[in-house]
């Protein structure tokens, strides 16, 4: 392969010559396969690694092939290990891991590493760029490695890795973190995409590198914490914590209009957040009133509150507004194109891949969990907004953009329309599809932003018209971009299809959309056509046709750093597209739980479906993790949870008698 590299400038169709170095490489690979096969149950990961490494275009050497092969091998290992039913083969290890992990501080460690790292970075010399980069990457990989044990546990319906420590006893504020099947993949998406974006950014960010590393690590800690937090106060702390680094990233390293965009981003999000803070305080206060004056911010405690309609709709509105701005949904989406356009590439990637999911996740966890009746009342209407204002309107707006990053931003509005539609529809498939689509959007839109960053670095323009015929000078880049495009428009076999398909079929099967489930499903399906229109428009204008500008004719194809950064996302597109069951099997039961809880609350109350009467508490539920002991979280069986529901229902009339 070394000599292949040397002869890269030779004629294209020169036949493959096999020299000693190639022979050596083959032998070394064979030995490596043999050794690795001993350690792993099967040779699949190794074979995958070797094949993927061989697929790398010949312009690259082993410095590129190595990391990409490692990624491929690890992903293959992930598939083999996570295959539904695979855990049955090794029940002992899985159970042990679960037991060991449940009582531990796994989640705390995952948040603490980047957080402490961010603080540590502050004490490092500003000039030592290489050290800063190495430290940041190491910390991010450490977070990734620490997050891997989460995969060992079969999520089921329950919460895992529960850690509940009293923080401020007087206010009932806990440090309560846990994950379930819903947050699991979002957490993994975060720890997966952070190193990718960070690595890519090191190629372009050279000014204020120390601040950049600090912001990245703080952002990671904030995002992870927000996914972990099950205490509303803690959630709010992390929620705001991630706002600041992103604000700085756009405002300092952004494009020419960065200040306007950063301020707009901050004000929009902060407006919603403050309303949410008010609602959080109110709900804790309401809890205190029915709990003898002791407030609580704990999610499971607050979930037990029965709120009458006039209280619930306002609290729901405050929470939902905060989340909807973050998603963003029509009509509060206009901060997103501005923020994406001006943000540096890594900022756009993280914003699209993870931060927007905070809104959808928050709606699913908090708005729907704490205020199910209000969510049910307004869900059908909001589904209409998600389809018309998100899927259709977002796509139409995207089509008319002349700025590539703005276009991708509007496509995010459209894609998150699917996610929100799935949440509003709240059938088993639509919920699972939604959660998977959150991850999908992170992968494919993240990849699109990352790839666009490549040509942006070369041409420093975002206008579509400035490009044209790029497929000739940049063939590998064109292939990757087309792959990301196809994932984005939901071609079957890629990840986008799975999410969209499940959301659309689930929407049609939904009972929560009134008479409109059919229309919403059709509207969502129309989005499939519109998505193809705008994305293919970009591909055609950027890559095909004659080269219209001579500066484009000499563009360098994707380089080693960029290729290594994009490779894991490209692989994930197909991993999710072909083996979605790995992901769905973890999501499935948690989605069923959300649906059962929701329907349980709705069914609990008669016709107006809201609880009427003074605010009160229901009995605790089965999935609620118990006190912060070492006791492993017991996964309740199906009958038990049904029983619990029956009890809860019986409790209502008895609660406030004559």
């Amino acid at each position, binding site marked *: 392969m070394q000599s292949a590299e040397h002869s890269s400038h030779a004629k*294209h169709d020169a036949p493959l010559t096999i020299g000693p170095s190639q022979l050596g490489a083959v032998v070394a690979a064979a030995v490596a396969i043999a050794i690795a096969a001993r350690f792993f149950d099967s040779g699949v990961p190794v074979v995958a690694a070797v094949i993927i490494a061989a697929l790398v275009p010949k312009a690259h050497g082993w410095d590129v092939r190595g990391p990409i092969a490692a990624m491929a091998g690890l992903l293959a290992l992930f598939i083999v290990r996570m295959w539904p039913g695979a855990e049955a083969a090794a029940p002992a290890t899985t159970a042990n891991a679960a037991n060991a992990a449940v009582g531990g501080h796994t989640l705390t460690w995952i948040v603490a590493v980047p957080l402490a790292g961010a603080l540590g970075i502050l004490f490092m010399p500003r000039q030592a760029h290489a050290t800063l980069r190495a430290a940041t990457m190491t910390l991010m990989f450490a977070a990734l490695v620490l997050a891997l044990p989460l995969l060992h546990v079969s999520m089921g319906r329950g919460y895992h890795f529960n850690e509940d420590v009293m923080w401020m006893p007087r206010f009932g504020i806990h440090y309560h973190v846990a994950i379930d099947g819903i947050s699991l993949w979002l957490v993994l998406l975060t720890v997966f995409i952070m190193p990718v974006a960070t690595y890519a950014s090191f190629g372009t960010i050279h000014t204020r590198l120390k601040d950049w590393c600090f912001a990245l690590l703080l952002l990671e800690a904030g995002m992870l914490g927000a996914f972990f937090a099950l205490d509303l106060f803690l959630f709010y702390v992390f929620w705001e914590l991630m706002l600041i680094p992103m604000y700085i990233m756009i405002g300092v390293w952004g494009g020419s209009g960065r200040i306007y965009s950063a301020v707009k981003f901050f004000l929009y999000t902060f407006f919603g957040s403050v309303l949410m803070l008010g609602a959080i305080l109110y709900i804790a206060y309401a809890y205190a*009133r029915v709990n003898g004056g002791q407030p609580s911010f704990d999610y499971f405690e607050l979930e037990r509150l029965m709120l009458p309609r006039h209280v619930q709709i306002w609290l729901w509105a405050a929470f939902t507004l905060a989340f909807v701005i973050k998603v963003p949904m029509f009509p509060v989406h206009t901060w997103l194109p501005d923020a994406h356009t001006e943000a540096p590439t890594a900022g756009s990637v993280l914003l699209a891949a993870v931060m927007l999911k905070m809104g959808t996740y928050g709606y699913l966890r908090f708005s729907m969990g704490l205020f199910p009746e209000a969510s049910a009342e307004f869900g059908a209407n909001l589904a209409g907004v998600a389809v018309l204002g998100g899927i259709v309107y977002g796509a139409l707006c995207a089509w008319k953009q002349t700025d590539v990053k703005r276009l991708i931003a509007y496509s995010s509005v459209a894609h998150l329309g699917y996610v929100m539609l799935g949440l509003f529809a709240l059938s088993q498939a639509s919920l699972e599809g939604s959660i998977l689509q959150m991850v999908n959007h992170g992968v494919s839109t993240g990849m699109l932003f990352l790839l666009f960053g490549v040509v942006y670095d070369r041409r420093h323009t975002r206008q579509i018209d400035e490009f044209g015929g790029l497929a000739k000078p940049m063939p590998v880049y064109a292939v990757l971009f087309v792959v990301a495009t196809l994932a984005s428009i939901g071609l079957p076999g890629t990840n986008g299809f799975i999410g969209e398909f499940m959301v659309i079929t689930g929407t049609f099967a939904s009972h929560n959309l009134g008479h409109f489930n059919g229309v919403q499903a059709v509207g969502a399906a129309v989005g499939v056509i519109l998505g193809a229109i705008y994305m293919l428009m970009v591909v055609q204008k950027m890559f095909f046709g004659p080269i219209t500008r001579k500066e484009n004719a000499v563009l360098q194809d994707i380089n080693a750093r960029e290729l290594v950064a994009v490779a894991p996302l490209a692989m994930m597109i197909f991993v999710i597209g072909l*083996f*979605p069951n790995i992901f769905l099997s973890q999501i499935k039961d948690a989605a069923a739980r959300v649906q059962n809880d929701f329907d349980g609350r709705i069914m609990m109350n008669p016709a107006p479906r809201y609880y009427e*009467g003074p605010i009160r508490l229901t009995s605790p539920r089965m999935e609620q993790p118990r006190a912060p002991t070492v006791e492993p979280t017991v996964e309740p069986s199906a009958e038990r949870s049904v029983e619990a529901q029956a009890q809860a229902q019986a409790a*209502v009339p008895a609660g406030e008698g004559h």
Partner: protein
Amino acid sequence: MLSLFPANDYALIAVILGMPLLGAFVNGIWGKRLGDSAVKLMTLTAVGVSFAAAVVAFIALAQGVSEQNDAHVRLTWNAWEWMHTTGGRDGQNIPIDVKFSIDQLNGIMMLVVTGVGFLIHLYATTYMAGDKGYARFFAYLNLFIFSMLVLILADNLPLLFVGWEGVGLCSYLLIGFWYESAPNAAAGKKAFLANRVGDFGLLCAMFLLAHYTGALDWNGIANGASSLVHPGEPWRVHVWPIGGGQYTGVLHFLQPLKPFTVSAATAVGLALLLGCTGKSAQIPLYIWLPDAMAGPTPVSALIHAATMVTAGVYLICRLSFVFVLSPFTMMVIAIVGASTALLAATIALVQNDIKKVLAYSTVSQLGFMFLGVGVGAFAAGFFHVFTHAFFKACLFLCAGSVIHSMHARIHDDDKAQDIRRMGGLRKWLPLTHGTFAVATAAIIGFPFTSGFFSKDEILYRAYVDRTINPMASSPLFKHFKLYEPPTWIGPVLYTAAVLAAAMTAFYMCRLYFLTFWGDFKGWTIGRPSLIAKQELGDEHGHDDHHHEDLTSPGYPPHESPWQMTVPLIVLAAFSLFAGVLNPGFGILKEKPLDHWLEPVFKAATEGAVVFGHGNDAEWAEHLEWTLALGGIGAFLFGTGLAYWMYVAQKGKPAARLAAEFPGAHQLLLDKWRIDELYDATIISMVDSLADTSAALDKTVIDGILARLTALIVAASGTILRAFQNGVVHMYAAMMVVGIAGMAWFFAVPHANATVVDAGNDDYVVSAAPGVGYGYRWDADGDGLPDQPDFAEASSVKLHLEPGKGPITVGLEVRNAFGLVKRKSISVARPQAPISSL
């Protein structure tokens, strides 16, 4: 054979599918490094092995069929669990697996795809020689074969959709293969988008099927299909008012007294049909196929004639048991097919580009297939798919051979494909001429060629067959009127099809005569004195566009090498003889193909497809020869007219006609201006909608939410800034006003109280504190203070038994200035939940 691979785990499918995929990978990734000859080897091996495995699988299938006495046999292979979704009335889980199966229907399709595919690959290895994207071309082509095989072998609809979109993607990539020219890329995009509109239909069909039948695999859909037709309201699809809701709003007059509903079978059928019209280029989505000819000719032969475009017909055959449940949908399919056949045939009459004529003829022939399956003659429609694959692939490859020879001198693609520049080619391209003639004979229905049998079967069945709802006899529908297609539809469809067949004969013969007969008009044939140096290095180079003088003498056109002619001969042989597989007119006692496919369609057609005239089999049988006269007459008329016009009269009548009716001629040349119509209506509508959205987003949404709020804040700031102007007098005045306000607040007592539920039916009323306040309570509600003097106690506790009414508590507050304020507070128990009453 079945013992090696059991029927329920037929892993040989992995080989059939895997080889083309491997070929695509190897050629796509290492193609440039391997060199052209290795690419050729890889691509031919991939498709060849796939074909061999397909043959083995087919033999195993045949064995299984004979063992099980002509039952519907499936060889299945479940690769892995893919995903799942929710469906059915009670929202059960529908698993969707990566599962493939081979049965009688797709077994034949599989052989056609791999077999014809192999021949076209062989042809293309020479045709594309020297192209810069040689490896890329074969990577795409192998990927296409893989996708096509996924499409036909898939055992459930979502997996079929993978192949469905996969072939669309390959088609997109191959149409735009020479992407450096903008029109090619645009044609690719057009094809993809038209197909996406169809995919929208397919997606809708999928969620409808998932919901109504509770399954998405073929067996499951078949089992649940009966629930697609049910007279009950909840089982029907409510079109208007949407979803069956009742509105009481302002627009309530818009809703009819009786809701407009269609059966789920009709909704599913029409949605599927939309998907099929997209892929199979039927009205209204046929517009992409003629443009798709921008791709290399082998692509046109493989994708846009023989295989991909027949996917729609395949899907209708595959889900025949769903379609027959809705006679309305069946009628629509037949009408769409007949009108497409007619429309495309009229356009083909006047086109001058050899590939365009063939493209419209493909659209037209696909219309025949739709007509066939639309009247319930699934086997006849599928038989036409089968024969069409041979003769149309042959025609396209011949066209490629002709273009190849023209390209030696004329490097402009459009000119090299113009039949007005050809003529007399039979002298120089004898093999191409012969095979073209045979394939033309087949397509125009020359008696006893394959096309004759398949087309006549369709014409005949269009006249005599009638589709009725198979559920009609069910007691459920005693009081429910089911749709029945009108009786006159059969003769009308027959007439339209005969007209289309006559036109087919005319335009195909026109094409044949203009290309191969008469005098050569491309360039002057002469001594090659000047040619030697010109031809150096630019043999068929697509990038070499130097304009040469075509009047100077040059070599005559040359016949193609054997790699290109062997596929032509094989395909021509099949075009000629494939008819024996299903000859009509009682030539064989039993039609082999009908018999082979019978188990697949039996369940669908039983009770659903009957003969007209009161299901009179004898009547239908008697008509067979009579109706065949229409087809033969069409052939004779079309061929004769073309011979008279273009051979006997050397094209003069045609020129005269064109001169006499310039408007009509131009309209046909412009393809009825359907593209322009679409541009002016639906496309410009969506476009202006998008413009409006973008403008709205910029001005209204962003304007109100971002700029207006910013403006309000800024305006408030401006107003408040007026007070902070640094003038001491102003500050002093503000202070006076402020102090006066505060003095007023403290001078007046405030009687505010809150009620708190203290549990145990106790309620505490507490008054707001204030400096120097004294309180006097009236806790028993008698209207008089409980004690005469004001006291310090700022709260009072009440006990309220359940069921007791509200108590009015009086509160008097006196402040240090001796001013008193009174307030009465009503304390009531909160209402009990409704459920406990």
